[in-house]
């Protein structure tokens, strides 16, 4: 299996990459990664992006008037529908 992986072209290896990464495989010991500088650099970049994502988009406060809008919407939902007048 490892020998087979070692003989993969970069295109073939990268085609398998989503599944390899998603399955949690230890890529550090992958024979293709060990022998291919390009794919090693690609993997390092993807790791950097995944790590950076966790620091992205700090939480922000909604505008102060949002609650009053929600409150109004709740009140309109809570009000019983007016009976329609039958003629």
């Amino acid at each position, binding site marked *: 299996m490892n020998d087979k992986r070692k003989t993969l072209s*970069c*295109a*073939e*290896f*990268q*085609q398998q*990459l*989503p*599944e*390899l*990464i*998603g*399955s*949690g*495989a*230890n*890529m550090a010991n992958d024979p293709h990664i060990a022998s291919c*500088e*390009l794919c090693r*650099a*690609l993997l*390092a*970049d*993807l*790791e*950097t*992006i*995944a*790590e*950076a*994502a*966790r*620091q*992205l*988009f*700090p*939480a*922000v*406060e*909604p*505008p102060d008037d*949002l*609650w009053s*809008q*929600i*409150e109004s*919407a*709740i009140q309109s*939902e809570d009000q019983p529908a007016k009976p329609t007048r039958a003629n």
Partner: protein
Amino acid sequence: MPHSPMPAQPSSTSVVNGDGLQPKSSPAPRPNSGPAATPDPAETDALARAQAGDHHAFAQLYSLHKRRIYSLCLRMVGNIAEAEDLTQEAFLQLHRKIGTFRGDSAFSTWLHRLAINVVLMQLRKKGLSLISLDEAMEPAPEEGPGRSFGAPDLTLTGAIDRLALERAVADLPAGYRLIFILHDVEGYEHNEIAAMLDCSIGNSKSQLHKARLKLRDALRAHSTQEAQL
């Protein structure tokens, strides 16, 4: 298959990123931390009263969770006005359904999933269909695996410009952005994302990979531009 706005119960208490790209530092606390999360006494009290119809208690729940829910909506849609509308809709849904919360998971987890479902329903209304997710499985010619060949000297260094990355995420196609946010930012596992989006686990992995590749391209372009200044 239409998704119910009712949040699903978390699949497990696992909070570990499910793929091989583990963070080198501790990740931020994840929303899907399940029932193991210690409940806030103020929240527990407000929740019980809100379930009994106490309007002030519901307002208290809003205060406790508004920041996280609004931020989630903003990340997922990348638009302030839309994020406000979705936050309002999420809390309206909460008001309608709060009586159905039984405490099988942490309230914050339940509310988080409810808000995600509200956003997903809105995105579907706007045309983010599963067809577009499935189509993304087929690599476009410029997205083929060979595109990363060459220019090994342009790899990203350890420090990424956070604002550049946030801009690049905002510029991602909606389907890619959605999966990237759910997995890499919000911490959901591929099986949870697949269930939420009604797609295959393989599709979720593939989309996430393509999203990261697009971000890599955008960041490399940004680095090149910076270097030329």
